[in-house]
């Protein structure tokens, strides 16, 4: 039976869905169950990763240190993972501390064309004998050839796997196949895929990634994640098992856990009209909540904001553009009629 590595960023991507307000109590409840059902990697933190708590992206209810120290105590077989974007988190201020606390897997991410900014962070993790992956976000914005070139840079810095993120939920299965198969052919390290569900493709795209040779998949419980959410973990695991793959996860316990988590704190995302426009325009899923709030405040159509964000090719981290765009739409009189 072929083994696939599942990484669970429910507590990281899901953080976007609640504007980074997950309580420590809920986080620890989740970590305890993740260990019990056999989740291989549990990724935690602010939606934009380590050191990203900010006015720009939303301030976290629980600090990085408090979160990591407490999760560390709950996990033994499940590895503790984090997402790190250079430009938000520095080695000296953030990464050193996370490694000191005992994080196992560090996924160092950049926009899909900017891999060279991950060099020092990846090298630092490797020098300290930790597992380091390279992550390319917003992968719909470039061709397979560019992704290969960028992923090869990360490989040369010491990345032990490459994760391709469909951060906007904009890819179709054929795009995923083309991108992932090119990467698999041109890299000597495993390739993984992280889906978003804006166009309802999260599970289908994940399967397509496997068909193209990916061996790592991200999934979140009930799909709890930014915007329209991610590949729904318990569905993904069920489908993979049905296809004859081994994940090491106990499906029935996972299903019970999903019901319990939904009753406790997880809100199940759904694909609303704004999610579809966001996906079609290729805008970062993490923009959903701030766009929703600001559109309401300035009485403009969130779809118009997403359209303009897409036109400007805005990337993750440029949330300040939302307000500027909303203000200018409102000044142009493009308000929603009462």
């Amino acid at each position, binding site marked *: 039976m072929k083994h696939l590595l599942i990484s669970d960023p429910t507590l990281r991507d899901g953080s976007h869905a609640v504007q980074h307000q997950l309580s420590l109590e809920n986080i620890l409840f989740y970590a305890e169950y993740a260990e019990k059902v056999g989740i291989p990697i549990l990724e935690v933190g602010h939606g934009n990763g380590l050191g990203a708590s*900010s*006015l*720009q992206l939303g301030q976290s209810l629980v600090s990085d240190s408090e979160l990591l120290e407490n999760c560390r105590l709950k996990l033994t077989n499940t590895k503790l993972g984090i997402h790190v974007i*250079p*430009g*938000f988190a*520095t*080695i*000296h*201020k953030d990464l050193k501390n996370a490694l000191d606390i005992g994080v196992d897997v560090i996924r160092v991410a950049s*926009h899909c*064309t*900017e891999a*060279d*900014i991950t*060099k*020092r962070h990846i090298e630092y993790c490797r020098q300290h004998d930790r597992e380091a992956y390279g992550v390319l976000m917003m992968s719909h*914005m470039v061709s397979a050839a560019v992704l290969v070139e960028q992923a090869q840079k990360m490989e040369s810095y010491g990345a032990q796997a490459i994760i391709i993120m469909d951060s906007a939920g904009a890819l179709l299965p054929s795009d995923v196949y083309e991108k992932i198969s090119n990467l698999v052919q041109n890299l000597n390290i495993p390739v993984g895929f992280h889906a978003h569900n804006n166009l309802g493709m999260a599970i289908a795209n994940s399967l397509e990634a496997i068909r193209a040779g990916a061996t790592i998949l991200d999934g979140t419980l009930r799909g709890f994640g930014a915007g329209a959410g991610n590949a729904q973990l318990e569905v993904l695991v069920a489908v993979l098992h049905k296809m004859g793959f081994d994940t090491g996860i106990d499906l029935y316990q996972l299903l019970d856990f999903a019901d319990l988590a939904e009753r406790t704190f997880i809100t199940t995302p759904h694909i609303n009209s704004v999610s579809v426009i966001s996906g079609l325009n290729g805008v970062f899923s993490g923009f959903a909540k701030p766009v929703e*709030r*600001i559109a309401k*405040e300035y009485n403009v159509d969130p779809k118009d904001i997403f359209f303009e964000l897409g036109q*400007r*090719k*805005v*990337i993750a*981290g*440029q949330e*300040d*553009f939302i*307000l*500027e765009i909303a*203000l200018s739409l409102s000044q142009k009189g493009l308000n929603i009629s009462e």
Partner: protein
Amino acid sequence: MNRSKKLKVAILGSGNIGTDLLVKIMRSDYLECTYFVGRNEESHGIQRAKNLGVRTSTNSIDTLIEHADSYDLVFDATSATGHIIHAPILKALGKMVIDLTPSNIGEMCIPAVNIDSCIHLDNINLVTCGGQASIPLVYAIAQTQKDIQYIEVISSISSKSAGPATRHNLDEYIETTENAIRKFSGCDEVKTIINLNPAEPCIDMQTTIMAIVANPDIVKLQQFLDHTVAYIQKYVPGYQLIMTPTVENGRLIIMVKVKGRGDYLPQYAGNLDIINCAAIAIAEEYAQKKVERGAFI
């Protein structure tokens, strides 16, 4: 002022920053570049300087030691590690130094904020590009608001304007900018974020300040900003306020855009232009002060 009365300056470093500085100096009424010094004869910067009729050398700092009588001020546009070596040498030679690297050696200077208290010093540091764009706004908040709890600076620049050194030094960029925000605001809780955006056509540099202030006095802040922005525009013509102080979700927000002059670097490289414009503004001020003191013949 005739040519012989201009302040003699040398540029150390023949990369993009050094070459753009040269183009700006060629236009200056107060400065004359008497030496353009790099390490690589084939570099585009050295060739450009030759075409402009400026004396060049590829022996880097050694040339400046050997020909110490040919200049009074040096712009160091090499690297932080380079400036750590150059600073004591230039100090011993008694030269005024404007440091464009994040070496953290000289006093941090933002012309719109503290040029008067820096101009007599022999080593002036220009912080970072994000610092040059944001600190005047941070200072405006500090001067007009009470009870500032937190300040954050977010900059987006075009990927093409960020060379290998910038990319390798993002952590230093963040930490240096944060130190400057603390220094000029007196607020300890600060954060800096930088985004590289690869969109084509290239985006202009955009910098946003977000702050938590107990009871923001928008009128007072706007008045202060009007003066600040007008002052900056004198040395950085492409600096514009694109969002006046706005309170949203408990955040006080100001946003500026910096379009470059397009001298040697393209217009979208406003981030590089603003730090060079600041360097020229300081050098010209220094030159004028020297004239007033009758230091020139």
